[in-house]
């Protein structure tokens, strides 16, 4: 893999993470448990989709294949998506959504903070802007983890179950592949080994305050970053891409 190819793969991964998670959150629109949280969730979704757009635009530039951001977002199939498995998992109930969000946000915050130091000016500038949004996302999801975990018996049980279910997807966030290794060496990519202990620290801190148990199993799911996805992504893309594929080239 050349450096340029690694860059494309990397940016595509970040874009796909933001895009798929943003889409999942948008599924809550109109279905939130309470008005204010419905708006909060869709605000976060909008932030993520906005990040996805910026990243897809840059990815299209890097690929030099004449594609647009829309081509990348709407015309690739499951095997070409590079998002981590965590973000394609279904929303489930509110606790499940919060567990997924927290596990992702804690990583994303540390990741973007490191990315502001990237030798790739485009990525460092993007990270500076995105960091402001993600700081709020982490605050939001952390507080909900605490409120539900250290809440009633029912909320505690649901939150613990949700954490147990989603835990096995957290490892993939920190397992570097060839793309990571190439770009970290160039000073472009984030050194995942460096931020992993900070992540563990943050997760432990929040779980303690939430009176939740950290799941014991250390076996982690992976494959998303290489294009091997769970069954869920197919259904997500079917919904997401249907209109563009049914009416190619359509415009508002």
């Amino acid at each position: 893999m050349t450096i340029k190819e690694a860059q494309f793969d990397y940016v595509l991964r970040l874009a796909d993470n933001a895009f798929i998670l943003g889409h999942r959150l948008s599924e809550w629109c109109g279905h939130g448990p309470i008005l204010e949280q419905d708006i909060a969730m869709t605000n976060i979704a909008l932030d993520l989709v906005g990040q996805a757009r910026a990243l897809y635009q840059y990815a299209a530039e890097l690929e030099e294949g004449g594609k647009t951001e829309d081509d990348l977002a709407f015309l690739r199939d499951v095997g070409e998506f590079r998002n981590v498995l965590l973000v394609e998992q279904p929303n489930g109930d509110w606790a499940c959504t919060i567990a997924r969000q927290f596990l992702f946000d804690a990583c994303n915050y540390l990741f973007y903070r490191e990315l502001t130091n990237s030798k790739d000016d485009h990525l460092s500038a993007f990270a500076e802007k995105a960091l402001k949004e993600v700081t709020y996302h982490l605050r939001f999801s952390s507080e909900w983890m605490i409120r539900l975990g250290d809440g009633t018996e029912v909320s505690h049980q649901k939150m613990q179950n949700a954490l147990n279910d989603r835990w096995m997807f957290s490892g993939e966030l920190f397992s570097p592949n060839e793309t990571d290794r190439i770009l970290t060496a160039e000073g472009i990519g984030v050194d995942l080994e460096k931020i992993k202990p900070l992540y563990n620290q943050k997760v432990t801190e929040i779980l303690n305050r939430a009176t939740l148990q950290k799941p014991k199993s250390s076996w982690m799911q992976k494959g998303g970053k290489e294009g091997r996805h769970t069954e869920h992504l197919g259904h997500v893309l079917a919904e997401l891409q249907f209109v563009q594929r049914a009416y190619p080239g359509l415009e508002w």
Partner: protein
Amino acid sequence: MKKNWPLWEVFIRSKSGLHHKHVGSLHAADAEMAIENARDVYTRRNEGVSIWAVESNNITASDPEDSNALFEPAKDKIYRHPTFYKLPDEVKYI
């Protein structure tokens, strides 16, 4: 019967503003959440840079029935208004 979270009144100060304006109300479980909900609901379109949230039952309001006794007397006492002074530009916002 479903119990609601407490109701909060929200006040926002815009970037160029000098005071917080009442923009509406929302439900939140506690003060932290009230600020976050206010941020999500009332500052989406860049409406402001500062949020005050007050539990609605901490606000005391005047009774409309008392309006006459409270406010009528002030109507015809123009000598109380500072309209006969010319304010220098330096103290425009006094």
